[in-house]
């Protein structure tokens, strides 16, 4: 079966669906990835609680659910986790605003915020 024979199967409805999906990809990526500014604060959400962490100070944080978070050189990463596939560890460093690490087994999200999004930090 050659290429032309496969192309002849495409119908108008297929074309509309593909164009619609491509437009949706472009529009949603503009919304999601529009700001790439360096960030100063990380937010960790787990077990329904939210923690703000400053990236200006190098530190190691261990969460109750067995995750080790490392902050270094204004970047943040999951250093170790007790989950099965360790996708969060392999994700590596976060540096820019709106970057996200998600760990499903530990129900944890880590993401970076722009400075202007926060009023103050409590410790």
């Amino acid at each position: 079966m050659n290429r032309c024979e496969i192309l002849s199967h495409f119908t108008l409805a297929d074309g509309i669906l593909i164009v619609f999906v491509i437009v949706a990809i472009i529009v949603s990526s503009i919304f999601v990835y529009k700001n790439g500014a360096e960030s100063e604060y990380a937010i960790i959400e787990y077990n329904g609680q939210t923690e703000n962490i400053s990236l200006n100070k190098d530190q190691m944080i261990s969460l109750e659910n067995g995750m080790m978070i490392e902050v270094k050189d204004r970047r943040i990463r999951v250093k170790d986790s007790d989950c099965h596939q360790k996708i969060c560890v392999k994700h590596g460093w976060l540096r820019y605003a709106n970057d996200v690490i998600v760990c499903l087994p530990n129900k944890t999200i880590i993401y970076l915020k722009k400075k202007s999004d926060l009023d103050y930090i409590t410790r």
Partner: protein
Amino acid sequence: MKTSTEKILILAAYSIMAVLLFVVESIIPKPLPFMRIGLANVFILLILVHIDFTSALVVTLTKVIIGNLFSGLLFTPLVLFSLVSSIVSLAVMWALYKSRISFSLIGVSIAGALSHLLTQLVLGYFLFIHSSRIFALFPIILLIGLISGLITGILVIILYKNIRFNII
């Protein structure tokens, strides 16, 4: 179509092929767990087109249960993702295939891949991560769905031309 020995044999053979492709795809290392082609869908779609919805549902359930047993995820909460999204995707593909809109098998397959991934995203939002941050994955998921749907759709068209069952 009545249940015959041949039908059972065909369902068994297609289930095994779907399970095999599912397990092989879970073993291949990838940056995101859902970044897969979903080649098992080729066989589910072929059964849906050649036989009927119930038979395709049997193959889907076999793929989910045996496939997750082999990849070590059965009896974890993550199997819910696989189960619910596979069934939703099958229902969407069946509805589009039966509908009056003239989708080819490529369009049906793209819709199946997209509905599979979007169901997983929505489930992830409601069951595990109660934060709208998870929707940052939206553009990546649409892109993966489009590409994998195209690949499986073309494979289905090639196989559809060349496979004929005697029983139908």
